[in-house]
């Protein structure tokens, strides 16, 4: 189903939108964030093609991507040059695919993965990339936040190709089943002698992914050390939650950097966000103020976090958190 939208106001060549979505994956499964990006892609009108690149597991990932409704075709490019999905190699594949198919839009997740790669494409195509959109108004007009989410900007791109990263929390996830796209292998000669992927140190956890969890419990400087985070992990396990942290806690070394929620960390919007020992600096709020319910526990009743929390408990967290663990256990 193709819907052509001619926008005479824009100096583009009046062709239909056609979108390429760079799929984020770990060699086994499609990253949930991609499902949200596909929803954004489908708002543009026109066919949506998914691109899976990597050095292993791509066929498996492509098979999963082909089941996402709204995806018309899945392109797959697998080679050892794409080890670690290093940006120099991935961008070479995208540029090759773009040269052959001339998409009007190229989208990726507003994750570190997507943000690392897409602007490089922008440079090669002489296009201004658009980071972290929270809304699609039309083929050329998008909404995004600036100043740590304290202002919302609507911008119109005058470039012939739009290169866009998408904030997951602003779009519904497309279903992961129900589609039946065709898969096509793409052979691209990628030669990259300028960079090399060495290794990834991924935090392993049985808990839900922070970026997509329904419940997140975050700790701040109030926790005082990394050991004290144990009680947050215990509470998280009782509630089926993920654990996050403020920048202060990460900087102090209490927890690894991938737990950071905020303007320059992860932007999340879970159903329930419990901020423990977090004061609520502007930069932290940027990362969680779109959560459906916010709970704050802090012994300082004047902490800014209480200005956005739905339920605030002014109490010593070292007393309150164990009480919560016990209270929930009794439920």
């Amino acid at each position: 189903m193709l819907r052509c939208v001619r926008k005479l106001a824009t100096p583009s060549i009046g062709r239909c939108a056609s979108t390429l979505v760079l799929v984020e994956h770990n060699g086994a499964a499609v990253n949930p964030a991609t499902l949200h990006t596909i929803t954004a892609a489908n708002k543009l009108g026109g066919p949506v093609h998914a691109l899976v690149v990597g050095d292993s597991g791509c066929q498996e990932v492509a098979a999963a991507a082909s089941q996402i409704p709204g995806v018309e075709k899945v392109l797959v490019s697998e080679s050892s040059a794409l080890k670690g999905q290093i940006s120099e190699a991935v961008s070479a594949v995208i540029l090759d695919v773009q040269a052959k198919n001339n998409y009007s839009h190229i989208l990726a997740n507003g994750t570190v993965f997507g943000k690392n790669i897409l602007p490089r494409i922008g440079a090669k195509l002489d296009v201004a990339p658009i980071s972290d959109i929270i809304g699609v108004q039309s083929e050329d007009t998008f909404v995004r936040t600036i100043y740590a989410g304290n202002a919302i900007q609507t911008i119109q791109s005058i470039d012939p190709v739009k290169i866009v990263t998408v904030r997951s929390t602003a779009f519904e996830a497309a279903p992961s089943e129900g589609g039946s796209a065709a898969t096509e292998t793409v052979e691209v000669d990628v030669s990259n002698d300028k960079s090399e992927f060495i290794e990834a140190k991924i935090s392993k956890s049985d808990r839900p992914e922070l970026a997509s969890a329904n419940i997140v419990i975050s700790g701040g400087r109030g926790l005082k050390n990394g050991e004290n985070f144990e009680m947050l992990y215990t509470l998280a396990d009782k509630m089926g939650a993920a654990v996050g942290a403020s920048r202060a806690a990460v900087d102090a070394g209490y927890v690894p950097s991938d737990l950071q929620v905020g303007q320059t960390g992860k932007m999340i919007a879970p159903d329930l966000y419990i901020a423990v020992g977090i004061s609520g600096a502007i930069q932290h709020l940027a990362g969680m103020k779109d959560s459906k319910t916010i709970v704050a526990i802090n012994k300082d009743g004047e902490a800014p976090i209480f200005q956005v929390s739905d339920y605030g408990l002014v109490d010593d967290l070292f007393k309150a958190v164990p009480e919560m663990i016990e209270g929930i256990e009794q439920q």
Partner: protein
Amino acid sequence: MSGLRVLVGCKRVIDYAVKIRVRPDHLGVVTDGVKHSMNPFDENAVEEAVRMKQKKVAKEIIVASCGPTQSQETIRTALAMGADRGIHVELAKGEEDLQPLAVAKVFAKLVEKEKPDLVILGKQAIDDDSNQTTQLLAGLLDWPQGTMASVLEHSDGVLKITREIDGGLEDISVKLPAVVSADLRLNEPRYATLPNIMKAKKKKIEKMSVADIGVDVTPRLKVQNVVDPPVREAGDKVPDVSVLIEKMKEKGHLK
């Protein structure tokens, strides 16, 4: 080993602690009379270059900034932190909305002129929050990139970079010349001491215009409007944990 020439970019932005206000014309935010500072990530970038010089890995640090007249203050701060000389690309009237692609093109020209071995920029500017300039510059130059860097180690023309990624950390290596973006935990930036601020006054800042450089900086993204975000009202305080649990149960958050 004679040492690397490092080009560092810095941007003058509204200070991170300031509560910004949307302009009445809804085309931007109020900047007049508002406190400005060096973009925090750029402080990390400058600091890293200075540490490289102290370790004798770098031999010269050039700091560049594109901005209005007051960007000179930002460059002076970098010089006071230890950079050797500065370049101020002073924006003319009508060039105020300088977007990442244009910045990258300006820096590409500076790279042509200064021939650095390494360019270090901040990961993102806290006003625009784009996180693009490093990647754009690397793409324009066809140099390898290392974004969100939290550790940089140089050895024989190769930079080993630890990056902060969504799931944890990643190590890559890039051959110089390369472009790198500094993340918060790359280092802890030093404060410019008064003696160093005084010394920095003797350091040279070369001034040039966009026209001098010969780059088209026309914005590609036209700002249609800027508005306040939806206001989140404060809720209630609860007296104790049992009430809190009740409330969470009511909302269906507890199984």
